[in-house]
């Protein structure tokens, strides 16, 4: 039986979405009888959260050390690599989040093993496992394999479905990392968190993005109102970010974030290649643009040729009616 470690990223009292997707995949894998699943959490994690994770995995390993209380790529990579040397997994899986993509490459060097970052599809039952990852901003996909163990795999959030956990809790083991003094040179000085309730674009199920067609920064309230009704996140194109209408963290595209929501709504977005590179893996795309020849329509599932200043508020009103939240 192949052992699979899942690095579970937590935030406060929650498991990050990318990790929850992998735990859901792992439960399916465990049912095939070919894989034994261990979830690994690092640093300060509440016992109740470990318990919740153990509903997905037969074993939860909690690695602790005073040097792991705050995230650092050095500390986390040493801790995970050290445990992997003991546990000898076939694969180590993690979400391709900022944290995952920051420290897992260091783990690969420590373990002298292969890594596939930002994977968007996987066939876990192939031998060796085959993975798909986009390159050139998604213009081409590559199918990659790694014969040697372990193999590190970082999957893009919103790639897999989240399923409900099992009823049986697994074993929880605490492990002291005993990191040598001086092994972590990074010092965390400050952390500023976004207001609660704002879902990051990379994890959002629904994104509504505005481009130049919004005409002025204050008009983004139209999109904010729409997003508020359905729990979506507002995105922005490069041109409106460069014009300082929106923050850099809101940018979808090649020089911004790559997103894969269930629903992507592009309002007043022309569809420059830089933008398409950031959203083309979205499941359903609705484009709203006055120009019937706008390129964005080539990348959309549905299109409305019309004035976003009329269409978006009308959709907001209709949604309130349908969802009974008005």
């Amino acid at each position, binding site marked *: 039986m192949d052992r699979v470690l899942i690095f579970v990223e937590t*935030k406060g009292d929650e498991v990050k979405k990318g990790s929850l997707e992998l735990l859901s995949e792992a439960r399916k894998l465990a049912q095939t009888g070919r894989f034994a699943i261990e979830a690994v959490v690092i640093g300060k994690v509440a016992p109740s959260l470990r318990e919740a994770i153990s509903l997905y995995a037969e074993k939860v390993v909690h690695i602790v050390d005073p040097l792991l209380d705050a995230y*650092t*790529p*050095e500390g986390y*990579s040493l801790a995970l690599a050290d445990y992997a040397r003991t546990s000898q997994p076939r694969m180590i899986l993690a979400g391709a*989040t900022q944290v995952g993509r*920051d420290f897992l*490459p*260091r783990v690969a*060097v420590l373990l*002298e093993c*292969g*890594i596939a*970052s930002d994977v968007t599809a996987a066939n876990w039952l192939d031998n060796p496992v*085959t993975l798909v*990852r*986009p*390159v*050139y901003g*998604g*213009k*081409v996909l*590559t*199918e*990659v*394999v790694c014969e*040697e163990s372990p*193999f590190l795999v970082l999957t893009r959030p919103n790639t897999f479905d989240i399923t409900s956990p099992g009823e049986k809790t697994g074993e929880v083991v605490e492990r002291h990392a005993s990191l040598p003094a001086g092994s972590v*040179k*990074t*010092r965390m000085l400050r*952390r*500023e*968190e976004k207001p609660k309730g704002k879902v990051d674009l*990379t*994890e959002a199920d*629904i994104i509504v993005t505005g481009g130049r067609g919004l005409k002025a920064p204050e008009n983004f309230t139209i999109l904010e109102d729409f997003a508020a009704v359905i729990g979506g996140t507002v995105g922005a194109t490069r041109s409106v970010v460069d014009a300082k209408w929106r923050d*850099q963290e809101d940018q979808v595209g*090649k*020089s*911004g974030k790559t997103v894969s929501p269930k*629903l992507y709504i592009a309002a007043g977005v022309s569809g420059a*290649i830089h933008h398409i590179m950031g959203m083309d*893996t979205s499941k*359903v*795309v609705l*484009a709203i643009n006055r120009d019937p020849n706008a390129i964005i*329509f080539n990348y959309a*599932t549905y299109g*409305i040729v*019309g*004035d976003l200043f*009329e*269409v*978006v508020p*009308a*959709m907001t009103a*209709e*949604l309130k009616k*349908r969802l009974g939240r008005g």
Partner: protein
Amino acid sequence: MNIVVLAKHVPDAEALIEIKGTGEKLEIEQKFAVSLFDEFALEEALRIRERLGGRVKVITLGTGKAIEVLRTGIAMGVDEALLLDHEAFLGGDGYATALSLSRAIAKEACDLVLCGKQAVDDDRGEVGPMVAQFLGLPHVGSVVKVDIAEGRATAESLVEDGRVVVEVPLPAVLTTQKGLNEPRVPLVMGVMKAMKAQIPRATPEDLGLDPNQIGLAGSKVRIRRYLPPKKRSQVQFIAGDAPGAAAEAVRILIDVERVI
């Protein structure tokens, strides 16, 4: 302050890319540019040198046109360039590439390594953190603000739930993100200088590397084939006036697609 910048020449975003045969190779239109995030690294290195003095060296790995990124660096104002120029370096995964680059960096003492958070061709984002680990250095990823003082770097990064500010002692590796600076456009004088510059080259042997450790031969992850991205079917336009189209769109999204 000795600074090394790792930079890469990549196909332009508009370049046509075609999959050949049954997916064994790509044909890429010959339109290249400096990888977007590496431009921020070059610019930041020059700004740090302007404040604190020292030298900036730009290193790249590749044959043929790859050298152009070094000429761009020289045109912008870097002091030195080094080209890892040998077939054996090519086709590597993140691990093999980072191994070669870290050996090239280690040839001379340096205080700071800067590189883009990811190259916009392979989109792996692995090389920066891996180089740091190969060299036993701390790193800070995706930085949007850097301050160097008293042998330390204070760096701010954007993360999913906000921003963090961390401090690392030098030497360290920083990967650069959009927002850090506005890269300068090279002046004509610089371009002239870059065209004439003799660029030193290094082979695997120069770096003490066995050809089997690096490039395609040294890669742990292999690309089995290239596939086209899933094509969306033709867009379905929703007709009607604004209220009508809006109502129909909402109906489709809720009842047909079930995404709301």
